[in-house]
Every structure is written in C-alpha cells, then in structure tokens.
C-alpha cells in the first residue's frame, strides 16, 4: 500500500510557470514545493499555474504552502491559478475555508 513518491514537474515558458505535483503533499514534501516555486519565480512570471490534478493527498502543511503562494501573488502582482485537484483533496481546501479564496481552474493543458 506504499504511495507513489512525491514528484514535482516544473517548467516556464514566456512568463508562465507551471508546477505539476503528484503524490502526497505534507510536512516532508511541502518544502520541495516552496523551493521549486522559488526557482520559477526568480525568473520573473506573470502567471504561475499550480497543477494539483495528480495530487493524492494534502494536509495543513500543504495548504500552508498554497496560501503562502496565494498571498505572495497578491503582494507581488502575479497570477496564481490552481488546476482543480481530486474531490477528496479539494474537500480539504473547502473544510479549511480556502476554496472560495483561491483561483481554481478546471482546464487541464492538453485537453
């Protein structure tokens, strides 16, 4: 019943960055997302797409990273778009009262 390892796919093209996460976002893996976002943002972005569609689990350590990015986007004037996760993962955002404050998008590139 081991979970697949947590993975981050990171890319940027013409000012749009994309972080695609898969696996479980928690205390151990959240710092890797902060680090990857930091590296992308250092290049200067107008939009960061955070793709959570392959995320299998999130807890408050993961929520914290997303909220930090959200606040940073507001402060620095770039756009954070979050590709909607699975129903179970999205429910954690809803329970926390964050779902309405974040910019969730449905579309998934390539569809």
């Amino acid at each position: 019943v081991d979970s697949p390892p947590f993975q981050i796919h990171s890319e940027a093209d013409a000012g749009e960055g994309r972080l695609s996460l898969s696996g479980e976002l928690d205390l151990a893996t959240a710092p890797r997302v902060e680090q990857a976002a930091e590296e992308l943002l250092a290049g200067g972005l107008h939009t960061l797409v955070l793709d959570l569609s392959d995320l299998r689990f999130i807890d408050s350590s993961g929520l914290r990273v997303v909220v930090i990015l959200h606040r940073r986007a507001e402060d620095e004037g770039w756009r954070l778009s979050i590709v909607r996760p699975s129903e179970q993962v999205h429910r954690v955002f809803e329970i926390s009262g964050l779902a309405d404050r974040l910019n969730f998008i449905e579309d998934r590139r390539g569809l």
Partner: protein
Amino acid sequence: VSTQGAQMLELELERDGSAPARARAAVRARFAELEVDTTLSFTLALLVSELVSNAVLHSLGPPDAPIVLSASATRETISVSVTDAGKGFSPVARPADRAVGGFGLELLARTASRWGVDSYAPTRVWFELSRAA
C-alpha cells in the same frame, strides 16, 4: 475518553519529517480490512497526518522521544490518539505568527466527531470519527 473496541494499531514513530507519511501508510494498511468508505478513509489519514505533524513540529519533549500513534475501532467509531513527550497544551490561543499554518486544529475541529487535547504531560491529542457518517 473511552477507547473500547478492538485495538487496531499501536505504533512508535521516530520524530522526524517523514513521521506523518509513515503514520498515514500504517493507518491505511491497518484499516483497509474495515472497508470504510473513501471519504472516511481520507479523513482518517488527514487527521492522523495533522496530529503527527503537530507532534513533530511542536512537541516540547526531547527530539529523540518517539511519537506514539494508537488507534482502535468499534462498529460505530474509529478512535485515534497521538502522544508525544510534551507537557500538554490548551488549544485556545493561536499565536499570530502561526496564522498561516494554523489549519491543523481547524481541520480536526471541523471533521472529527469528537476530539480533545490533554493539557498535562504527556501531550496527548485524540479524535473519534463516526463510521456511519
């Protein structure tokens, strides 16, 4: 707090960043046989992750003191407790500098049927989930 019912799990976890993932894996493996529904199973893993993460980050006990995860089940209820070597706490005031990271207790309060914290040593946080929900 009653923890009657079948003991499902008693696990000592080394206090490090991988403890939450190990705790979730152990709980998922152990509770698979109960065939709880997907939402309840996810909530169980979520709250276990919250309690163990909290113990890893905030225990005032010595770093080498293990975290003890204990779980039991009746037909109606799943009960979990997480104990560390801290001195207990009262879940009331939340320091402002933790505001961004303060979702853990909120998730616990909003999803558990019952929950509580012992305000004396050792720190023990517990919750119950209704299997009927």
